[in-house]
């Protein structure tokens, strides 16, 4: 009883909440979720918007001019045209770069998902050392493209490189290839290296997602008579779909960044077999002094990715996760 009295007494001394009228229009506006949340999201949105969308818009305007990179462009509507976009249509470099970009975006993402999934399943089934292997597979993710580019140039070196040397050692030297030199292999070699770098990322997300699948699902499948592979293929993997989607999105971001890797390994002209829009854009802008053309390429690249992204956004929205 004394506690009760004490609480009551203490509380009485403290200021009791004052009841406000409810029909104060301004006040209820100030209380609206929109207004209350604004201080949190508005400043980041403005900062991001200025740099990202400001930049993209500017880039788009540039693509309408014929700015070469040395003489300041003239921003007047009368000068604007879509010439650069038409030029793109006739440029074989554009088409090969565009094709490679899409291939990279799609194939690399898929390959990486599969590899990440396999790694995750393997690590998940380890009795010991899960942490160690998780770190090992994730390590390359920490490295810069500048670094991994150098590593892989080295791995792929047809004479001294690790890969061909390994083939030699196991007596399968005939499998050795000029991995980066052969146009037929070049893009695949690039993707393989990127897979090495980002497989670990896919793995770690898959692992997290595997952990959310109740143990009972594995056991139910076992009791139902499914073997190891059937269990994964039919019961577990289908449940990873939402993780796959989100990993795919991040991987696509990385595949866009593959610019740096290609640039380190091949310089600004990787050849039609491995050229991508990002590299081409850079080459046109800085090596060829064709800024407006580069800008047009940039716009196309951005729009393309947004188009590819749209289904994801819709999917997330429908799942209520957007």
């Amino acid at each position, binding site marked *: *009883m*004394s*506690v*009760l009295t*004490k*609480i*009551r007494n*203490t*509380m009485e*001394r*403290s*200021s*009791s*909440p*004052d*009841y*406000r009228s*409810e*029909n104060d229009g301004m006040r*209820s506006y100030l*209380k609206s979720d929109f207004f209350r949340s604004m201080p949190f999201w508005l400043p980041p949105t403005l900062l991001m918007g200025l740099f990202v969308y400001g930049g993209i818009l500017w880039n788009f305007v540039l693509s309408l001019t014929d700015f070469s990179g040395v003489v300041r462009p003239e921003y007047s509507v009368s000068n604007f045209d879509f010439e650069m976009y038409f030029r793109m249509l006739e440029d074989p470099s554009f088409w090969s770069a565009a094709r490679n970009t899409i291939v990279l975006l799609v194939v690399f993402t898929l390959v990486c998902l599969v590899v990440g999934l396999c790694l995750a399943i393997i690590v998940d089934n380890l009795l010991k050392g899960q942490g160690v292997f998780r770190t090992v597979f994730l390590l390359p993710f920490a490295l810069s493209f500048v670094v991994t580019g150098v590593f892989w140039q080295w791995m792929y070196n047809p004479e001294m490189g690790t890969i061909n040397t390994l083939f030699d050692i196991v007596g399968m030297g005939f499998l050795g290839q000029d991995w980066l030199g052969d146009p037929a292999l070049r893009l695949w070699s690039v993707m393989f290296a990127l897979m090495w770098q980002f497989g670990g990322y896919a793995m770690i997300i898959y692992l997290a997602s595997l952990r959310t699948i109740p143990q009972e699902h594995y056991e139910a499948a076992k009791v139902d008579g499914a073997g190891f592979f059937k269990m994964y293929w039919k019961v577990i993997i289908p449940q990873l779909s939402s993780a796959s989607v989100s990993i795919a999105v991040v991987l696509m971001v990385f595949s866009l960044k593959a610019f740096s890797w290609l640039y380190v390994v091949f310089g600004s002209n990787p050849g039609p077999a491995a050229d991508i829009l990002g590299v081409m854009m850079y080459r046109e802008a800085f090596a060829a002094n064709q800024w407006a053309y580069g800008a047009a390429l940039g716009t196309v690249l951005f729009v393309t990715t947004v188009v590819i992204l749209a289904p994801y956004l819709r999917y997330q929205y429908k799942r209520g996760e957007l």
Partner: protein
Amino acid sequence: MAQLTFDDVRKTFQEGNNEIVAVDDLNMEVRDGEFLVVVGPSGCGKTTTLRMVAGLETITEGQIELDGRSIRGMSPQDRNIAMVFQSYALYPHMTVFDNMAFGLRESTDLSEDEIDDLVTETSEMLDIKELLNRKPSELSGGQQQRVALGRAIVRDPDAFLMDEPLSNLDAKLRAEMRTELQRLQEEFETTTIYVTHDQTEAMTMGDRIAILDHGELQQIGTPMECYYEPANEFVAGFIGEPSMNFLRGTSDGGVLRMEDFSYELSQSTVESIGSTTEITLGVRPEDVEVVPEATQTNDVAVEVDVVEPFGKENNLYLKPEGSDTDDTIIATVGGRKSVNEGERVGMRLPEEHLYLFDRSDGTAIRHPTVEAEEITPVAE
């Protein structure tokens, strides 16, 4: 310290193009210091009602008044109401002390010393003083529950709202905490609304029970009223475990004709029925008598379909002889009453224990007429 009035309260949710009515024209009063238990089937609007009181949900129509002042449009932090969540919602990164102190720090201008005093004393009362420096994750379910209570109590709110606070505990702990909660509420006399769907909690804890269905209030009354004088068929069926047996019948003069048998009613009962013909007869399992053979009027020859032994009692599922439906009538008999499945016995429904409902709208037209037996002599 506060009286809550619900005045034609209505709450709808917009779901796509559909309007979902969660609470419909709710009128009730929670008296100062009362412990009101709200029960009802899942989705009947219990949680929504609580959330409107707390200010977590806007009120679509009507008013909720706290001590006569409308709290509509007031933000939760201005209402001085405490809520205990089903999930406890303890702040996982704060110690028990900080969990309890948080509300005081946020909504009062007490000094840190005063807060310290209050929290310590409250924790003593709840027997969680040694836990003050632990994190919620280091507590057992029952301890977490206590902390959640403590967090509410320490603020001395005008009203407590509790949404199935015990449902995450196991049976033993639940029984313990039930007693604890009752004790505390009696001590504090703070107006409390308590949502549950546990029969035991509903019957034993509340001063009164409010039964909701489809967002509508069906009855509000003491546990005994709800049990023995249910307002309608829904309440009668909802309160009590096993559920009341319901038999559809037609009143035909002094006789109630059921599908499988007839029942002759006494004059007083016939009067209470009046002109209603479509009747539902209700009888609680513990009131069904099982006799060796159907000998008296109104006795029914039945076959024991299933026996559910509980030790202290058995539930018998009785099937009137010649019945061609699967419907059975449940009778609860003593645990040592030996009866086997398939046996033929007599079933007796004592008229003084019968409930009758108007089938058209479910309202009760007759309650049992037996009086309570006193254990001790009336004059003490």
